[in-house]
Protein backbone atom coordinates (compact mmCIF):
# COMPACT_ATOMS: atom_id res chain seq x y z
CA UNK A 1 0.00 0.00 0.00
CA UNK A 2 2.76 2.41 0.99
CA UNK A 3 6.18 1.86 -0.50
CA UNK A 4 9.27 3.84 0.31
CA UNK A 5 12.32 3.39 -1.85
CA UNK A 6 15.81 4.58 -1.08
CA UNK A 7 14.87 7.96 0.30
CA UNK A 8 17.42 10.43 1.58
CA UNK A 9 16.20 13.30 3.73
CA UNK A 10 18.15 16.25 5.01
CA UNK A 11 17.81 18.97 7.61
CA UNK A 12 19.87 21.62 5.92
CA UNK A 13 23.11 19.81 5.29
CA UNK A 14 22.47 17.12 7.86
CA UNK A 15 21.69 13.80 6.23
CA UNK A 16 19.18 12.04 8.48
CA UNK A 17 17.63 9.29 6.37
CA UNK A 18 20.22 7.35 4.46
CA UNK A 19 18.77 5.35 1.59
CA UNK A 20 15.88 4.10 3.62
CA UNK A 21 13.35 1.67 2.17
CA UNK A 22 10.29 0.07 3.69
CA UNK A 23 6.80 -0.96 2.73
CA UNK A 24 3.46 -1.46 4.40
CA UNK A 25 0.75 -3.74 3.09
CA UNK A 26 -2.93 -3.01 3.21
CA UNK A 27 -4.47 -3.83 6.58
CA UNK A 28 -1.18 -4.30 8.39
CA UNK A 29 0.01 -2.86 11.63
CA UNK A 30 3.71 -2.15 11.30
CA UNK A 31 5.88 -0.93 14.14
CA UNK A 32 9.00 1.11 13.72
CA UNK A 33 11.40 1.22 16.64
CA UNK A 34 14.72 2.92 17.06
CA UNK A 35 16.78 4.91 19.50
CA UNK A 36 16.32 8.59 20.09
CA UNK A 37 17.33 10.63 17.13
CA UNK A 38 17.53 7.68 14.78
CA UNK A 39 15.19 9.40 12.34
CA UNK A 40 11.80 7.88 13.02
CA UNK A 41 9.96 11.17 13.16
CA UNK A 42 11.91 12.37 10.18
CA UNK A 43 10.66 9.42 8.17
CA UNK A 44 7.07 10.27 9.03
CA UNK A 45 7.65 13.89 8.09
CA UNK A 46 9.09 12.80 4.79
CA UNK A 47 6.05 10.68 4.04
CA UNK A 48 3.74 13.55 4.83
CA UNK A 49 5.58 15.97 2.61
CA UNK A 50 6.62 18.13 5.55
CA UNK A 51 10.23 17.36 4.75
CA UNK A 52 10.28 16.02 1.19
CA UNK A 53 13.20 13.67 0.58
CA UNK A 54 15.84 14.91 -1.79
CA UNK A 55 16.21 11.52 -3.39
CA UNK A 56 14.15 8.38 -3.59
CA UNK A 57 10.53 7.58 -4.11
CA UNK A 58 7.42 7.34 -1.97
CA UNK A 59 4.49 5.52 -3.54
CA UNK A 60 1.02 5.30 -2.05
CA UNK A 61 -1.43 3.03 -3.77
CA UNK A 62 0.53 3.16 -7.01
CA UNK A 63 0.65 6.93 -6.94
CA UNK A 64 3.92 8.78 -6.60
CA UNK A 65 3.49 11.16 -3.68
CA UNK A 66 7.14 12.04 -3.15
CA UNK A 67 6.79 15.68 -3.96
CA UNK A 68 3.14 16.33 -3.33
CA UNK A 69 2.14 19.06 -0.93
CA UNK A 70 1.06 17.98 2.52
CA UNK A 71 -2.58 18.94 1.96
CA UNK A 72 -2.76 16.73 -1.10
CA UNK A 73 -1.23 13.81 0.69
CA UNK A 74 -3.78 14.12 3.46
CA UNK A 75 -6.55 14.11 0.89
CA UNK A 76 -5.25 10.87 -0.52
CA UNK A 77 -5.92 9.25 2.82
CA UNK A 78 -2.78 9.42 4.89
CA UNK A 79 -2.96 10.96 8.35
CA UNK A 80 -0.25 11.62 10.89
CA UNK A 81 -0.52 12.01 14.63
CA UNK A 82 2.60 14.08 15.10
CA UNK A 83 5.11 13.79 17.87
CA UNK A 84 4.29 16.34 20.53
CA UNK A 85 0.63 16.30 19.56
CA UNK A 86 0.38 19.70 17.92
CA UNK A 87 -3.21 20.26 18.85
CA UNK A 88 -4.71 23.69 18.21
CA UNK A 89 -4.53 25.07 21.71
CA UNK A 90 -6.74 28.15 21.32
CA UNK A 91 -9.57 26.20 19.74
CA UNK A 92 -12.07 24.01 21.52
CA UNK A 93 -11.85 20.25 21.53
CA UNK A 94 -14.77 20.05 19.20
CA UNK A 95 -13.27 22.50 16.74
CA UNK A 96 -10.04 20.56 16.77
CA UNK A 97 -11.93 17.48 15.75
CA UNK A 98 -13.89 19.37 13.14
CA UNK A 99 -10.69 20.63 11.58
CA UNK A 100 -9.53 17.04 11.42
CA UNK A 101 -12.27 16.50 8.89
CA UNK A 102 -11.23 19.51 6.83
CA UNK A 103 -9.94 17.47 3.94
CA UNK A 104 -13.26 15.78 3.32
CA UNK A 105 -15.74 18.23 4.73
CA UNK A 106 -18.40 19.58 2.44
CA UNK A 107 -22.06 20.49 2.71
CA UNK A 108 -23.14 17.14 1.44
CA UNK A 109 -21.37 14.97 3.94
CA UNK A 110 -21.98 17.21 6.92
CA UNK A 111 -24.09 14.61 8.67
CA UNK A 112 -21.44 12.02 8.01
CA UNK A 113 -18.88 14.22 9.72
CA UNK A 114 -21.23 14.73 12.62
CA UNK A 115 -21.62 11.02 12.95
CA UNK A 116 -17.86 10.72 13.10
CA UNK A 117 -17.83 12.90 16.17
CA UNK A 118 -19.74 10.20 17.94
CA UNK A 119 -17.34 7.60 16.66
CA UNK A 120 -14.43 9.51 18.14
CA UNK A 121 -16.20 10.13 21.41
CA UNK A 122 -17.01 6.43 21.55
CA UNK A 123 -13.35 5.72 21.16
CA UNK A 124 -12.33 8.31 23.75
CA UNK A 125 -15.26 8.80 26.08
CA UNK A 126 -12.95 10.84 28.28
CA UNK A 127 -13.19 13.72 25.81
CA UNK A 128 -16.97 13.96 25.79
CA UNK A 129 -17.11 16.13 28.88
CA UNK A 130 -14.41 18.41 27.52
CA UNK A 131 -16.02 19.12 24.15
CA UNK A 132 -16.19 22.84 24.72
CA UNK A 133 -12.95 23.26 26.66
CA UNK A 134 -10.01 24.95 24.96
CA UNK A 135 -7.68 22.23 23.83
CA UNK A 136 -4.64 23.92 25.31
CA UNK A 137 -5.93 23.47 28.83
CA UNK A 138 -6.25 19.71 28.52
CA UNK A 139 -3.77 17.52 30.33
CA UNK A 140 -1.07 15.83 28.35
CA UNK A 141 -2.91 12.58 28.02
CA UNK A 142 -6.13 14.23 27.01
CA UNK A 143 -4.27 16.11 24.34
CA UNK A 144 -2.82 12.90 22.98
CA UNK A 145 -6.28 11.39 22.71
CA UNK A 146 -7.48 14.48 20.97
CA UNK A 147 -4.62 14.35 18.50
CA UNK A 148 -5.43 10.78 17.58
CA UNK A 149 -9.11 11.53 17.36
CA UNK A 150 -8.43 14.49 15.16
CA UNK A 151 -6.35 12.44 12.77
CA UNK A 152 -9.09 9.83 12.58
CA UNK A 153 -11.62 12.46 11.58
CA UNK A 154 -10.14 12.49 8.10
CA UNK A 155 -10.97 8.79 7.78
CA UNK A 156 -7.48 7.89 6.70
CA UNK A 157 -6.71 4.68 4.87
CA UNK A 158 -3.38 4.67 6.59
CA UNK A 159 -2.66 6.21 9.95
CA UNK A 160 0.83 7.14 11.02
CA UNK A 161 1.31 7.40 14.76
CA UNK A 162 4.38 9.02 16.26
CA UNK A 163 4.84 7.81 19.83
CA UNK A 164 1.18 7.78 20.81
CA UNK A 165 1.90 6.42 24.28
CA UNK A 166 4.24 9.21 25.27
CA UNK A 167 3.22 10.68 28.57
CA UNK A 168 0.10 8.61 29.02
CA UNK A 169 -1.08 6.69 32.03
CA UNK A 170 -0.53 2.94 31.70
CA UNK A 171 -4.22 2.26 31.65
CA UNK A 172 -4.70 4.67 28.80
CA UNK A 173 -1.74 3.36 26.89
CA UNK A 174 -3.28 -0.04 27.13
CA UNK A 175 -6.52 1.41 25.99
CA UNK A 176 -4.99 3.19 23.04
CA UNK A 177 -3.24 0.10 21.86
CA UNK A 178 -6.51 -1.77 22.14
CA UNK A 179 -8.18 0.97 20.12
CA UNK A 180 -5.48 0.74 17.48
CA UNK A 181 -6.15 -2.97 17.08
CA UNK A 182 -9.82 -2.24 16.91
CA UNK A 183 -9.32 0.38 14.22
CA UNK A 184 -7.59 -2.15 12.11
CA UNK A 185 -10.12 -4.87 12.60
CA UNK A 186 -13.24 -2.74 12.35
CA UNK A 187 -12.33 0.01 9.97
CA UNK A 188 -9.61 -1.74 8.04
CA UNK A 189 -7.21 1.11 8.69
CA UNK A 190 -3.60 0.37 7.94
CA UNK A 191 -1.27 1.56 10.68
CA UNK A 192 2.35 2.56 10.95
CA UNK A 193 3.30 2.88 14.57
CA UNK A 194 6.43 4.55 15.87
CA UNK A 195 7.01 3.64 19.48
CA UNK A 196 9.50 3.72 22.30
CA UNK A 197 7.35 1.32 24.21
CA UNK A 198 8.59 -1.42 21.91
CA UNK A 199 7.26 -4.45 23.63
CA UNK A 200 3.67 -3.36 23.75
CA UNK A 201 3.80 -2.01 20.23
CA UNK A 202 5.21 -5.19 18.80
CA UNK A 203 2.57 -7.17 20.64
CA UNK A 204 -0.18 -5.73 18.53
CA UNK A 205 1.65 -5.50 15.21
CA UNK A 206 2.26 -7.85 12.34
CA UNK A 207 5.72 -6.75 11.39
CA UNK A 208 8.40 -4.45 12.60
CA UNK A 209 11.38 -2.42 11.46
CA UNK A 210 14.36 -1.29 13.47
CA UNK A 211 15.90 2.03 12.55
CA UNK A 212 19.40 3.05 13.53
CA UNK A 213 20.97 6.35 12.50
CA UNK A 214 18.77 6.71 9.45
CA UNK A 215 19.05 3.14 8.17
CA UNK A 216 16.86 0.08 8.56
CA UNK A 217 19.04 -2.44 10.35
CA UNK A 218 16.49 -5.15 10.94
CA UNK A 219 13.06 -6.08 9.71
CA UNK A 220 10.75 -9.01 9.97
CA UNK A 221 7.57 -10.40 11.48
CA UNK A 222 6.79 -9.60 15.08
CA UNK A 223 8.14 -12.87 16.47
CA UNK A 224 11.52 -12.39 14.82
CA UNK A 225 11.94 -9.03 16.44
CA UNK A 226 10.76 -10.14 19.85
CA UNK A 227 13.24 -12.97 19.86
CA UNK A 228 16.26 -11.26 18.44
CA UNK A 229 18.82 -11.03 21.22
CA UNK A 230 20.29 -7.77 20.04
CA UNK A 231 16.91 -6.07 19.90
CA UNK A 232 15.94 -7.48 23.24
CA UNK A 233 18.98 -5.95 24.81
CA UNK A 234 18.83 -2.58 23.13
CA UNK A 235 15.10 -1.87 22.96
CA UNK A 236 13.24 -4.20 25.23
CA UNK A 237 15.52 -3.70 28.18
CA UNK A 238 15.91 -7.35 28.92
Amino acid at each position, binding site marked *: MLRIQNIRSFYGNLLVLKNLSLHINEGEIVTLIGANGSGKSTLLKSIMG*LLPPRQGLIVFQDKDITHLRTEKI*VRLGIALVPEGRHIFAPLSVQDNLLLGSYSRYSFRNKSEVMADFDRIFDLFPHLVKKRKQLAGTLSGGEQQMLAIGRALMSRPRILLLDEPSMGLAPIIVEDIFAKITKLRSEEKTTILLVEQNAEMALDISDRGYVLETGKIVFQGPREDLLENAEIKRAYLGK
Partner: protein
Amino acid sequence: MGSIYALAALGFNIIYNATGIINFAQGEFVMLGAMLMAYFAAVLKLPLLLAFIVVVLLVACVGLILERGCIHPLKNPSILVLVMITIAASILLKGVTMFIAGKEVHGMEYFSGENTVVDMGGAKVPTQTFWILGVLGVVVCGLVIFFNLTLAGKAMRACAFDRTAASLMGIPTKRMVMFSFFLSAAIGGMAGAVIVPISMADYQSGAMFGIKGFGAAVFGGLGNNFGAVSAGLILGILEALTAGYLSSHYKDALPLAVLLLVLFVKPSGLFGSEAAGRLKKF
Protein backbone atom coordinates in the same frame (compact mmCIF):
# COMPACT_ATOMS: atom_id res chain seq x y z
CA MET B 1 -14.03 58.24 14.41
CA GLY B 2 -13.98 55.21 16.65
CA SER B 3 -15.49 53.10 13.94
CA ILE B 4 -12.51 53.82 11.73
CA TYR B 5 -10.18 52.59 14.40
CA ALA B 6 -12.41 49.59 14.78
CA LEU B 7 -12.19 48.80 11.09
CA ALA B 8 -8.44 49.21 11.08
CA ALA B 9 -8.22 47.01 14.16
CA LEU B 10 -10.21 44.32 12.44
CA GLY B 11 -7.69 44.24 9.63
CA PHE B 12 -4.92 43.64 12.14
CA ASN B 13 -6.91 40.89 13.71
CA ILE B 14 -7.51 38.98 10.53
CA ILE B 15 -3.90 38.66 9.61
CA TYR B 16 -3.05 38.00 13.21
CA ASN B 17 -5.64 35.30 13.40
CA ALA B 18 -4.40 33.61 10.29
CA THR B 19 -0.69 34.04 10.59
CA GLY B 20 0.19 35.32 14.01
CA ILE B 21 1.74 38.32 12.27
CA ILE B 22 1.05 41.90 13.15
CA ASN B 23 0.94 43.59 9.79
CA PHE B 24 2.21 47.11 10.21
CA ALA B 25 1.30 47.87 6.64
CA GLN B 26 -2.36 47.64 7.62
CA GLY B 27 -2.58 51.40 7.98
CA GLU B 28 -1.32 51.78 4.44
CA PHE B 29 -4.21 49.66 3.23
CA VAL B 30 -6.60 52.13 4.76
CA MET B 31 -4.68 54.99 3.20
CA LEU B 32 -4.73 53.30 -0.18
CA GLY B 33 -8.44 52.69 0.09
CA ALA B 34 -9.03 56.33 0.89
CA MET B 35 -6.82 57.62 -1.89
CA LEU B 36 -8.26 55.32 -4.50
CA MET B 37 -11.80 56.07 -3.46
CA ALA B 38 -11.16 59.78 -3.73
CA TYR B 39 -9.70 59.18 -7.16
CA PHE B 40 -12.43 56.98 -8.53
CA ALA B 41 -15.37 58.75 -7.02
CA ALA B 42 -14.28 62.36 -7.06
CA VAL B 43 -12.01 62.50 -10.10
CA LEU B 44 -13.29 59.80 -12.40
CA LYS B 45 -16.81 60.24 -11.06
CA LEU B 46 -17.65 56.58 -11.12
CA PRO B 47 -20.92 55.65 -9.46
CA LEU B 48 -20.36 55.22 -5.72
CA LEU B 49 -21.06 51.53 -5.49
CA LEU B 50 -18.90 50.70 -8.48
CA ALA B 51 -16.07 52.84 -7.17
CA PHE B 52 -16.34 51.19 -3.79
CA ILE B 53 -16.13 47.71 -5.22
CA VAL B 54 -13.24 48.56 -7.50
CA VAL B 55 -11.35 50.18 -4.62
CA VAL B 56 -11.83 47.25 -2.30
CA LEU B 57 -10.72 44.81 -4.94
CA LEU B 58 -7.69 46.87 -5.85
CA VAL B 59 -6.54 47.22 -2.27
CA ALA B 60 -7.13 43.55 -1.68
CA CYS B 61 -4.89 42.83 -4.63
CA VAL B 62 -2.19 45.01 -3.12
CA GLY B 63 -2.50 42.90 0.00
CA LEU B 64 -2.08 39.83 -2.09
CA ILE B 65 0.95 41.18 -3.84
CA LEU B 66 2.44 42.10 -0.49
CA GLU B 67 1.98 38.55 0.72
CA ARG B 68 3.29 37.01 -2.48
CA GLY B 69 6.26 39.30 -2.70
CA CYS B 70 7.37 39.73 0.86
CA ILE B 71 5.91 37.18 3.19
CA HIS B 72 5.65 34.15 1.00
CA PRO B 73 9.29 33.81 -0.07
CA LEU B 74 10.49 33.55 3.51
CA LYS B 75 11.23 30.09 4.71
CA ASN B 76 11.23 30.31 8.45
CA PRO B 77 10.91 33.90 9.49
CA SER B 78 10.85 35.01 13.09
CA ILE B 79 7.97 37.18 14.17
CA LEU B 80 10.21 40.18 14.56
CA VAL B 81 11.58 39.86 11.06
CA LEU B 82 8.03 39.70 9.77
CA VAL B 83 7.15 42.83 11.65
CA MET B 84 10.13 44.62 10.19
CA ILE B 85 9.21 43.42 6.74
CA THR B 86 5.73 44.78 7.03
CA ILE B 87 7.19 48.07 8.22
CA ALA B 88 9.57 48.19 5.29
CA ALA B 89 6.72 47.29 2.99
CA SER B 90 4.65 50.11 4.42
CA ILE B 91 7.44 52.58 3.70
CA LEU B 92 7.55 51.29 0.16
CA LEU B 93 3.79 51.50 -0.27
CA LYS B 94 3.89 55.04 1.00
CA GLY B 95 6.63 55.92 -1.44
CA VAL B 96 4.85 54.40 -4.40
CA THR B 97 1.64 56.17 -3.51
CA MET B 98 3.49 59.44 -3.23
CA PHE B 99 4.83 59.00 -6.72
CA ILE B 100 1.62 58.01 -8.31
CA ALA B 101 -0.80 60.25 -6.47
CA GLY B 102 1.43 63.10 -5.44
CA LYS B 103 1.63 64.71 -2.07
CA GLU B 104 -1.66 66.50 -2.01
CA VAL B 105 -4.58 65.77 0.15
CA HIS B 106 -7.54 64.12 -1.46
CA GLY B 107 -11.09 64.19 -0.31
CA MET B 108 -14.57 63.72 -1.63
CA GLU B 109 -18.20 64.41 -0.90
CA TYR B 110 -20.25 62.45 1.56
CA PHE B 111 -21.85 59.41 0.05
CA SER B 112 -25.26 60.88 0.56
CA GLY B 113 -24.59 64.42 -0.53
CA GLU B 114 -22.32 67.19 0.60
CA ASN B 115 -22.30 67.89 4.31
CA THR B 116 -25.59 66.31 5.14
CA VAL B 117 -26.19 65.95 8.81
CA VAL B 118 -28.78 64.28 10.92
CA ASP B 119 -29.99 65.92 14.06
CA MET B 120 -29.90 63.50 16.90
CA GLY B 121 -31.16 65.00 20.09
CA GLY B 122 -29.23 68.21 19.67
CA ALA B 123 -26.02 66.63 18.48
CA LYS B 124 -25.53 66.92 14.78
CA VAL B 125 -24.18 63.77 13.26
CA PRO B 126 -22.85 63.77 9.71
CA THR B 127 -24.58 61.20 7.55
CA GLN B 128 -21.29 59.69 6.59
CA THR B 129 -21.01 58.40 10.14
CA PHE B 130 -23.92 56.13 9.45
CA TRP B 131 -22.27 54.84 6.34
CA ILE B 132 -19.20 54.04 8.34
CA LEU B 133 -21.13 52.40 11.12
CA GLY B 134 -23.10 50.44 8.57
CA VAL B 135 -20.04 49.11 6.82
CA LEU B 136 -18.48 48.35 10.18
CA GLY B 137 -21.54 46.45 11.29
CA VAL B 138 -21.67 44.38 8.15
CA VAL B 139 -17.96 43.62 8.30
CA VAL B 140 -18.05 42.65 11.95
CA CYS B 141 -21.00 40.35 11.53
CA GLY B 142 -19.36 38.82 8.52
CA LEU B 143 -16.14 38.22 10.37
CA VAL B 144 -17.72 36.82 13.48
CA ILE B 145 -19.65 34.38 11.39
CA PHE B 146 -16.63 33.55 9.33
CA PHE B 147 -14.16 32.93 12.12
CA ASN B 148 -16.40 31.31 14.66
CA LEU B 149 -18.93 29.45 12.62
CA THR B 150 -17.37 28.41 9.35
CA LEU B 151 -14.86 25.69 8.87
CA ALA B 152 -12.66 27.88 6.71
CA GLY B 153 -12.53 30.48 9.46
CA LYS B 154 -11.54 27.91 12.03
CA ALA B 155 -9.00 26.52 9.64
CA MET B 156 -7.53 29.98 9.37
CA ARG B 157 -7.16 30.22 13.12
CA ALA B 158 -5.63 26.78 13.19
CA CYS B 159 -3.10 27.94 10.60
CA ALA B 160 -2.05 30.81 12.78
CA PHE B 161 -1.48 28.66 15.77
CA ASP B 162 0.38 25.78 14.22
CA ARG B 163 0.99 25.72 10.55
CA THR B 164 2.50 22.27 10.45
CA ALA B 165 -0.41 20.72 12.23
CA ALA B 166 -2.82 22.65 10.05
CA SER B 167 -1.26 21.28 6.91
CA LEU B 168 -1.51 17.82 8.45
CA MET B 169 -5.26 18.35 8.57
CA GLY B 170 -5.21 18.92 4.85
CA ILE B 171 -5.58 22.66 5.21
CA PRO B 172 -3.85 24.50 2.37
CA THR B 173 -1.88 26.75 4.68
CA LYS B 174 -0.23 28.90 2.08
CA ARG B 175 -3.52 29.73 0.47
CA MET B 176 -4.93 30.57 3.89
CA VAL B 177 -2.20 33.07 4.54
CA MET B 178 -2.70 34.60 1.14
CA PHE B 179 -6.37 34.82 1.70
CA SER B 180 -5.91 36.48 5.07
CA PHE B 181 -3.86 39.22 3.50
CA PHE B 182 -6.42 39.57 0.78
CA LEU B 183 -9.22 39.85 3.30
CA SER B 184 -7.53 42.24 5.66
CA ALA B 185 -6.42 44.45 2.82
CA ALA B 186 -9.97 44.43 1.54
CA ILE B 187 -11.26 45.51 4.92
CA GLY B 188 -8.56 48.14 5.15
CA GLY B 189 -9.61 49.34 1.73
CA MET B 190 -13.24 49.47 2.79
CA ALA B 191 -12.35 51.47 5.85
CA GLY B 192 -10.40 53.90 3.74
CA ALA B 193 -13.14 54.19 1.17
CA VAL B 194 -15.87 55.05 3.64
CA ILE B 195 -13.88 57.48 5.74
CA VAL B 196 -12.29 59.55 3.04
CA PRO B 197 -15.26 61.94 2.81
CA ILE B 198 -14.85 62.76 6.48
CA SER B 199 -11.16 62.66 7.05
CA MET B 200 -9.52 63.10 3.65
CA ALA B 201 -6.23 61.42 3.00
CA ASP B 202 -2.78 61.85 1.65
CA TYR B 203 0.07 59.45 1.19
CA GLN B 204 1.11 59.79 4.80
CA SER B 205 -2.18 59.11 6.53
CA GLY B 206 -1.42 55.41 6.82
CA ALA B 207 0.64 55.67 9.98
CA MET B 208 -2.14 57.25 12.01
CA PHE B 209 -4.66 54.61 11.02
CA GLY B 210 -2.04 51.99 11.71
CA ILE B 211 -1.26 53.10 15.22
CA LYS B 212 -4.81 53.64 16.29
CA GLY B 213 -5.91 50.39 14.73
CA PHE B 214 -3.12 48.49 16.40
CA GLY B 215 -3.99 50.11 19.70
CA ALA B 216 -7.61 49.12 19.37
CA ALA B 217 -6.70 45.60 18.33
CA VAL B 218 -4.47 45.13 21.34
CA PHE B 219 -6.80 46.96 23.66
CA GLY B 220 -9.61 44.65 22.67
CA GLY B 221 -7.50 41.56 23.05
CA LEU B 222 -5.60 40.54 19.94
CA GLY B 223 -7.50 38.26 17.65
CA ASN B 224 -10.81 39.06 19.28
CA ASN B 225 -12.93 40.81 16.69
CA PHE B 226 -15.70 41.80 18.99
CA GLY B 227 -13.11 43.23 21.37
CA ALA B 228 -11.43 45.13 18.56
CA VAL B 229 -14.63 46.81 17.54
CA SER B 230 -15.61 47.77 21.05
CA ALA B 231 -12.12 48.96 21.83
CA GLY B 232 -11.99 50.99 18.63
CA LEU B 233 -15.25 52.68 19.47
CA ILE B 234 -14.23 53.27 23.08
CA LEU B 235 -10.96 54.77 21.93
CA GLY B 236 -12.77 57.11 19.55
CA ILE B 237 -15.25 58.21 22.18
CA LEU B 238 -12.54 58.73 24.78
CA GLU B 239 -10.67 60.90 22.35
CA ALA B 240 -13.69 63.01 21.61
CA LEU B 241 -14.49 63.35 25.31
CA THR B 242 -10.95 64.36 26.19
CA ALA B 243 -10.80 66.90 23.42
CA GLY B 244 -14.23 68.22 24.26
CA TYR B 245 -14.07 68.41 28.03
CA LEU B 246 -10.50 68.20 29.23
CA SER B 247 -7.60 69.31 27.17
CA SER B 248 -7.27 69.10 23.46
CA HIS B 249 -3.53 68.89 23.90
CA TYR B 250 -3.86 65.59 25.61
CA LYS B 251 -6.66 64.15 23.58
CA ASP B 252 -4.39 61.51 22.12
CA ALA B 253 -2.53 60.89 25.33
CA LEU B 254 -5.39 60.29 27.69
CA PRO B 255 -7.03 57.43 25.83
CA LEU B 256 -3.59 55.89 25.50
CA ALA B 257 -3.02 56.20 29.21
CA VAL B 258 -6.34 54.54 29.85
CA LEU B 259 -5.35 51.82 27.43
CA LEU B 260 -2.09 51.26 29.26
CA LEU B 261 -3.79 51.07 32.62
CA VAL B 262 -6.21 48.51 31.27
CA LEU B 263 -3.33 46.48 29.94
CA PHE B 264 -1.55 46.60 33.27
CA VAL B 265 -4.62 45.37 35.08
CA LYS B 266 -5.70 42.95 32.42
CA PRO B 267 -2.64 41.92 30.44
CA SER B 268 -4.57 40.23 27.68
CA GLY B 269 -6.65 43.21 26.70
CA LEU B 270 -10.11 44.28 27.65
CA PHE B 271 -11.93 41.40 26.05
CA GLY B 272 -9.14 38.89 25.64
CA SER B 273 -9.66 35.75 27.61
CA GLU B 274 -6.70 35.23 29.83
CA ALA B 275 -6.53 31.51 29.29
CA ALA B 276 -6.67 31.93 25.55
CA GLY B 277 -4.10 34.69 25.76
CA ARG B 278 -1.61 32.44 27.42
CA LEU B 279 -2.07 29.76 24.83
CA LYS B 280 -1.28 32.01 21.94
CA LYS B 281 2.30 32.24 21.00
CA PHE B 282 3.81 35.53 20.14
